[in-house]
């Protein structure tokens, strides 16, 4: 082996090390907040403690969780969050999957027009929608209801999901549907047995994304939820403020852990769908 090859190799190995080191730093930085959150939720006094104190669990307690459950109307907010997020997922899929599939079947100008309309919705920062939606909902009597909040969520999800799904369906080779036609598929069969299974993992990933966006949504909830439809993201604010706010940080942390736990569990179980190559082998390759 020549010297030049050796040094090239060493340099390459060095580059790999640097990349790994950077990734490790990035991992620590991004994991620190959730780790600190969990640590804070399990310590009696969270505030004014150094990170090391928290991480050694000097005054370990589950009291914060008890407080979060009992004092914070946890189950009321939790129910609202679950109902709104789950309904958002179901309705978004039921509306957008056929819509997007249909869009990939219509030609040229019509498709471009609808696609642009759908995408144009995404140009608007959704903060801007909050006030008009509030006024509309008050007039329609939807303000303060789960239905109203759900509708607001759908106004964000439907354009986004349609746009994503059109992209997925576009990857289905035309040849595949033609094979289906020759095999005797009617349009429904083509959709249900041929195209949809090919984009299945994409649809599942999208469903998870929609669920997480709805679950974490705060701004609409603040404006539109009134008193009876508040989700967990609003519920957590009950522990903010007040005279002895400092004493409540542990409870807030516990509450926050409870808020994010379902999402994390959900994402972990569905992870394999998010990363998966269903179309591999559909055509040559």
């Amino acid at each position, binding site marked *: 082996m020549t010297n030049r090859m050796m040094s090239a190799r060493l340099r390459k190995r060095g580059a790999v090390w640097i990349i790994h080191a950077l990734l490790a730093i990035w991992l620590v930085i991004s994991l620190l907040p959730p780790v600190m959150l969990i640590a804070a939720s399990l310590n009696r006094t969270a505030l004014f403690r150094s990170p090391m104190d928290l991480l050694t669990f000097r005054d370990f307690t589950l009291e914060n969780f008890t407080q979060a459950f009992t004092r914070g109307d946890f189950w009321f907010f939790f129910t609202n969050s679950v109902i709104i997020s789950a309904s958002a997922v179901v309705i978004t899929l039921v509306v957008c999957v056929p819509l997007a599939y249909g869009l990939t079947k219509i030609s040229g100008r019509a498709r471009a027009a609808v696609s642009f309309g759908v995408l144009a919705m995404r140009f608007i920062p959704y903060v801007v929608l909050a006030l008009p939606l509030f006024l509309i909902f008050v007039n329609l009597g939807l303000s303060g209801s789960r239905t109203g909040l759900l509708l607001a969520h759908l106004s964000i999800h439907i354009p986004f999901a349609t746009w994503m799904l059109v992209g997925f369906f576009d990857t289905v080779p035309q040849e*595949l549907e033609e094979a289906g*036609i020759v095999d005797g598929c009617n349009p429904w069969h083509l959709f249900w047995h041929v195209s949809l299974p090919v984009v299945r993992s994409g649809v599942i990933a999208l469903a998870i994304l929609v669920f997480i966006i709805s679950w974490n949504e705060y701004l609409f909830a603040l404006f539109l939820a009134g008193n009876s439809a508040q989700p967990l993201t609003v519920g957590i604010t009950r522990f903010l403020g007040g005279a002895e706010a400092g004493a409540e940080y542990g409870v807030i942390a516990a509450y926050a852990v409870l808020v994010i736990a379902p999402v994390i569990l959900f994402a972990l179980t569905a992870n394999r769908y998010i990363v998966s190559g269903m179309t591999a082998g*559909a055509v040559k390759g």
Partner: protein
Amino acid sequence: MAGVSIRNVEKTFGETQVIHGINVEIADGAFVVLVGPSGCGKSTLLRIIAGLEDVTGGQILIGGTEVNDMAPKDRDIAMVFQNYGLYPHMTVAQNMGFALKLARAETADIALRVGRAAEILNLTPLLDRFPRQLSGGQRQRVAMGRAIVRNPQVFLFDEPLSNLDAKLRVQMRAEIKELHQRLKVTTVYVTHDQIEAMTMADMIVVMHDGVVKQAGAPLELYDRPSNLFVAGFIGSPSMNFFAATVTDGALRLADGQSLQVPEGTSLAEGLQVIVGLRPEELVLSDHGLRAEVTLVEPTGAELHVGARLAGQQMTAVFRERHSLKHGQAIAMTPLPGRMHLFDPTTQTRLN
């Protein structure tokens, strides 16, 4: 089984007409190859037979029944696509049985027929795999299996071998041919590879710009191409063409050399003709057309020679191992009766 009749078929996409009145009669059980350069409308014609495209004019008959307004599934045809079109989420067995399942066949019956087709194509050990777990050749065979499971009246193939490497292509070519001999199902096969066409077909249909240039048995097209296009398209390396004038009862080339008019052909004095000489139908001789060697390519079995004759480049192929060098002067004559003459204006055959 059934024959296919293509009668005056025309096809227009928007403003552009891509098929200009095609007539082809395909006999029951025949293996017909549609061949032609890219964009000549082969796929379009095949898709019209399949029912994936509507005709703009004319008729398609399968087994004597007009199918113009029939859905593909009612035409009793099966198609093998260029990229195989296998359903990625179904196993090999499910892919092959899908059409039967849609037709609500009994589960046991589906299993039986899929099993039988798999046996024919040596796919039995692969039945539980997904397409992504198969090699290109295996996918190709699954696509064929999917077609034969349905026991259709007509098989349609659209360049089924173009994604395979050269060696596999030759192997699959033989397999498809064998399958046809075994099943005797009418087959329409599209390719732009004239060797595939020559080796597989009972009848070749040469297309160009949406019209049929000539249809006939492979050797008929090779021996007596009816026009310049077919003459140049069939055969590899392709035919050499020289402009000539009938002078003193002989064919005089641009540089003054002349060839005898083939026997049994009478040409008017002064007539302009195009002389076609196949590279492999030339022999070295002491007299004959003098040319200068520019390129010598031994392939082992044959010797490909590039030469300059009458001011233009030409090719000759010899089976003998002549020792030729760049710059060497040679003389060649066409084999007796192997000269092709064409009219330069109508481009049709004269002899």
